[in-house]
């Protein structure tokens, strides 16, 4: 399976600031996803990011708040903008192996907003 890394692994940020999370994959993938997970809770899909096109956002998530870049087939970033304490969560990058139909996840970025 692909190896997915995320930076930073955790961060504590001030209200009103922005944080950019990086996701690096060791192989080329077409589809990448960004999820949010409260500790011990389920995963919520934020957006789907395909290389060469605009990200597709799920209901309740907007580009101004969560801008995503996908400059190539191995990398993506998610920015959490104008943060509030409600944005405190674990953010996970994910990819799909289109041959095996399996989805793999990065280790996550634990964000705390104070």
């Amino acid at each position, binding site marked *: 399976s692909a190896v997915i890394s995320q930076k930073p692994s955790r961060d504590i940020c001030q209200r009103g600031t922005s944080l950019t999370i990086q996701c690096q994959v060791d192989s080329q993938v077409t589809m990448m996803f960004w999820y949010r997970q409260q500790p*011990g809770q389920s995963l919520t899909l934020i957006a789907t990011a395909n290389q060469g096109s605009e990200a597709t956002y799920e209901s309740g998530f907007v580009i101004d708040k969560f801008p995503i870049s996908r400059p190539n087939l191995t990398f993506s970033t998610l920015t959490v903008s104008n943060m509030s304490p409600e944005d405190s969560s674990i953010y996970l990058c994910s990819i799909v192996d289109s041959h095996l139909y399996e989805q793999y996840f990065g280790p996550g970025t634990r964000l705390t907003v104070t």
Partner: protein
Amino acid sequence: AQSVAQPEDQVNVAEGNPLTVKCTYSVSGNPYLFWYVQYPNRGLQFLLKYITGDNLVKGSYGFEAEFNKSQTSFHLKKPSALVSDSALYFCAVRGPQGSSASKIIFGSGTRLSIRP
């Protein structure tokens, strides 16, 4: 729209006993079904999947799951539980490739606790 339900927030089992973690789903067309496990402070790990073929699928760590189309269920099972199986388990469903439901949706999760 597809959905997946895990009716039990927590399942408690004695070590050595069989375990079942329940999952039901709703999706248009043939489903792709998955189980994932998350250990404390660890990432999400893929356990097993059902795409097509045999209704009983085997996965990692001795786990298996049975696809039941008539009951729209995909319960996770293990014949003999280990204390190390204690973790948070997620069922997930995805619609057919290329359809509007081709993204994975996760259930609410079931915390499995195995007592020695």
